[in-house]
């Protein structure tokens, strides 16, 4: 078996048997076992699967796994035909349309399925993208760039910096909007990071993802992407925001400020919810409508201020009954510049953590506190514990939920090492992360049985 085939998941007995028979993935092979013959195309195998089975795609289209035992015979019947994909011609660019650049960080916002082997290939060149989502050609002149090819859980502070710089360069070139295709798991962290790093934006920066992968007909990827490009091209605001499904229906896409949005469900399409905020805008029937009057206006004359640095010397400690305060000491020893406590309720952690916190503050670590309730505002004046924590020097973080507060601390220590300046920045409203008023409807979310056609 060639190296190509070895990279296709087979190992152990199965790999040896395939090698012996000279079979490669994509070949037509015949496996004879107990007098029965199975003929089909050799399919790659999942890397985590066992080493005892060979997967074949039968003529009927079904895959089956055949256990390799000493009496099994494998024969190579024919060479697999490589699919000849002809890229569709690039549709004519309409010069009157706005320019939007789509930056990809990984995942597959658009993809094709290889029905032959089951492989899913991402379609990220502009022409591929137009082939899969042809509607884009009527919305904007789209350019694409692959910045990273990473699962979103593998992105770190360095990637935020790099991404912010790429966005800034494209804006400097004069695009009318930027779309960032992103895995949904950490998309809200990146959105918050870009919100702090890209200040005084002249045009919108819209992050977009999909909860159902784009190789399936029911994927939300295309609908979300179309809305994101629509908003990047035409929306009147100029902020970093996330565009995703508003409900479980495909009818409306809601756009929410990057510092006020959180992934709240493991699998639903409408997983992104505004926290202590109302959404910025909604895209419905190709129309962008604003849902608030409080937003930064689009203005190409504005000069972008780029502050792309983040510190990784910031930690999050979630309080739970029985937490070992030695964790706090450990972070202090490691040289952490800031620790965000994820406290309970209005902003509390147990008394038995007080001496560790006191030590951290005395050692010059900025200790801040956000609530694990997610919704609502921290208020440490109501109970003794809160007042004691304030007295120890713990900084409350208003109505920021923990992830935004954490990203903000990382960004702050990317800008300064001065504790006083850090405290000033923590209290300043830099990217709409604080809202002075919380309205009653800004809590939780209603289940998605609305379809509003």
């Amino acid at each position, binding site marked *: 078996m060639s190296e190509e085939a070895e990279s296709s998941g087979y190992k152990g007995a199965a790999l040896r048997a395939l090698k012996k028979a000279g079979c490669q993935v994509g070949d037509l092979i015949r496996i004879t076992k107990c007098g029965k013959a199975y003929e089909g195309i050799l399919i790659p195998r999942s890397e985590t699967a066992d080493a005892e089975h060979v997967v074949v795609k039968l003529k009927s289209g079904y895959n*089956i796994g055949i256990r390799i035992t000493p009496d099994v015979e494998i024969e190579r019947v024919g060479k697999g035909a490589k699919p000849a994909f002809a890229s569709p011609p690039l549709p004519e660019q309409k010069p009157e349309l706005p320019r939007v650049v789509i930056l990809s960080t990984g995942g597959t916002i658009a993809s094709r*399925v290889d029905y032959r082997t089951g492989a899913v290939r991402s379609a990220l060149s502009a022409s591929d993208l137009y082939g899969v989502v042809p509607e884009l050609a009527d919305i904007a002149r789209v350019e694409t760039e692959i910045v990273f090819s990473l699962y979103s859980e593998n992105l770190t502070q360095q990637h935020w910096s790099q991404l912010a710089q790429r966005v800034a360069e494209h804006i400097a070139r004069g695009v009318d909007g930027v779309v960032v295709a992103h895995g949904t798991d950490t998309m809200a962290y990146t959105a918050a990071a870009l919100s702090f790093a890209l200040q005084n934006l002249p045009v919108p920066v819209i992050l977009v993802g999909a909860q159902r992968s784009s190789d*399936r007909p029911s994927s939300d990827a295309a609908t979300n992407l179309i809305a994101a490009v629509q908003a990047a091209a035409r929306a009147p605001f100029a902020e970093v925001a996330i565009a995703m499904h508003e409900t479980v229906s*495909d009818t409306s896409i809601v756009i929410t400020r990057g510092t006020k949005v959180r992934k709240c469900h493991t699998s639903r399409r409408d997983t992104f919810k505004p926290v202590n905020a109302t959404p910025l805008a909604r895209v419905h029937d190709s129309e962008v409508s604003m849902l608030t009057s409080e937003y930064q206006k689009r203005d190409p004359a504005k000069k972008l201020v780029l502050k792309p640095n983040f510190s990784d010397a910031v930690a999050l400690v979630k309080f739970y009954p029985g937490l070992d305060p030695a964790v706090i000491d450990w972070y202090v020893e490691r040289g952490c510049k800031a620790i965000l406590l994820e406290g309970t309720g209005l902003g509390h952690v147990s008394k038995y953590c007080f001496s560790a916190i006191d030590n951290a503050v005395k050692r010059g670590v900025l200790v801040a506190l956000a609530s694990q309730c997610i919704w609502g505002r921290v208020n440490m004046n109501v109970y003794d514990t809160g007042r004691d924590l304030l007295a120890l020097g713990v900084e409350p973080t208003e109505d920021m939920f923990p992830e935004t507060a954490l990203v903000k601390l990382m960004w702050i220590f990317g800008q300064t090492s001065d504790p006083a300046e850090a405290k000033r920045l923590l209290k300043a409203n830099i990217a709409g992360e604080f809202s002075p008023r919380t309205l009653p409807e800004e809590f939780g979310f209603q289940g998605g049985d609305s379809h509003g*056609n």
Partner: protein
Amino acid sequence: MEIDYAKIGLKVGLEIHQQLNTRAKLFCGCPPALFKEEPEITFLRRLRPTQSELGQVDPAAFFEFQKGVKILYEANRATSCLVEMDEEPPHPLNMEAVEAVLTAALMMNMQPIDEVHVMRKTVIDGSNTTGFQRTCIIASDGWIKVGEKTIPIQAASLEEDAARKTGEEDGGKIIRYRIDRLGIPLIEVATAPVIYSPAEAEEVAFAIGRILRDTCKAMRGLGTIRQDLNVSLPNGALMEIKGVQELELISKVVKYEVQRQLVLISIKEELNKRGIKKDALQQQFIDVTEVFKQTRCKVIRKALDKGCGILAVKLPLFSGILKRELIPNVRFGTELADRARFWGRVGGIFHTDEMPAYGITAAEVAALRKATGAGEEDAVVFVADNEENARDALKAVVERAQEALEGVPAETRTAKEDGTTRYMRPRPGAARMYPETDIPPVRLTAELIEKVKAHLPEPAEKKVKRLMREYGLNEKLAKQIVDSEYGLLFESVVRESNVAATTVAAFLTETLKSLKREGIAIEKVTDNQIRDLFKAVGAGEIAKEAASDVFVWLSKNEGKSCQEAAAALGLKMLSKAELAALIDRVIAENRNVVDKLGAKAFGTLMGVVMREVRGKADPTVVNTLLKERLANR
């Protein structure tokens, strides 16, 4: 006309789908049940045809997408969760369903697959929220004996049932589907195309159906079993016929399909004789709205009032062809109309072969012919709808007419309740299947297969003999019970109740068969209700003669008990005291007879009493009691 099916080369393959009565659906914890009430949850979706590696998309699918067709899904909390809504990944494969399929597969001498891989079969008509149906092969390469013939069974698969269509709105732009049925496990059994006559198709389907029932996991009732047929003739085409709901319909569907193909072949010969060439059939659509300005045809009037126009196309030399009957209620014109409905979303078409009719006058027909330049030898098809729909409809009509020159077009057709079939969609290309990566492959271990083998149901012939031996049934009754849907219920009823085995067997076969013939929905009565019914009969609470009345009442009053049935029907058994009082009254009323005949009056009085207590007393008890009262008088 008697057709020699072997001679004309008929080949039929069967695909039998049977819903499985597992505790939960195939990929989630929801119960496999449907709901009738208004939906509690609705949501609107679009399905986007995905591009294959070759850049291809399914033409029918892409057509629907371009027209902006949306799907409105209906759900309730009792029967669906986020999985059916495609808002949560599927849970692992339901092993209870896997075992049920394995059971059937082993009974059909099949070879289990070592490692089962769940696949996604692309289906984007909206019947699956995901845009694909999840399916997997559990076993392959087996056989069953039907009479003397061995029928090869190609595969036994396990798949999820689809959502059911509940309507259309907005001129077909919104299709409603209910997702309660989505995810119910289905076993699919496919035979090789080695069936050569309609009768044989039915026999084979029947034999497979019996095996599936023997697994004890088959759901019962209308809609729980669906047969798909592949029917082909050497000079015709391979036709895929979907959704035959009753076994009894299979031979009729096959017969009709053969007839339809034969007529289409003769139409082709007729058209060739008339010398029509394919390029004479052109997509030249003429606006004939003017012709019908003053029409009294209600359908056209209504369309015109809505601002629609009328578009017509000439089919040269097609006069008389459109009224040719293919099968009952399906003329060649119907085939054109079905295509027009599918591709143009129109309500129907009009054509000159059926004119004058529907309030359309001879003068209008003449004007229509003039406007389209059609002579008497030509046919004209016209449609009243908006321009876009009308164009799509007539385009489809012309394409179908062109296909008639070639003979029989390969299609996917859907079976109606009367055994006829209608156009459903074009035959899909090669199955678009790719792996369901959200579900890990399942190994069918030797231990699992041994376990299933150890619990295989008894083969039918053996069971007949055993029922004869153990329950004293005659061969005919034993066979009927084994062939019926109640083969398994029979034994538990006899075991639990005090009723004679032959009585139970006769009821579950002959009585129910005749009730079904009378139109009673026998599938509405559950196994548990039948058990309770016989317990009540055995306990003397319901007379054996009243059992069928109770059964009929239960079928019409779902969810009620036998006791409620007996009360509603006034069938409550009389107590001994009540019966004695009734007998005394009868004796008193017939004093002269008793006086004259003495003990010999018994026969007459027995008749009178039984007429009064019919269904409310056991004849043997009446007999004893009446003798006693007469003697003690």
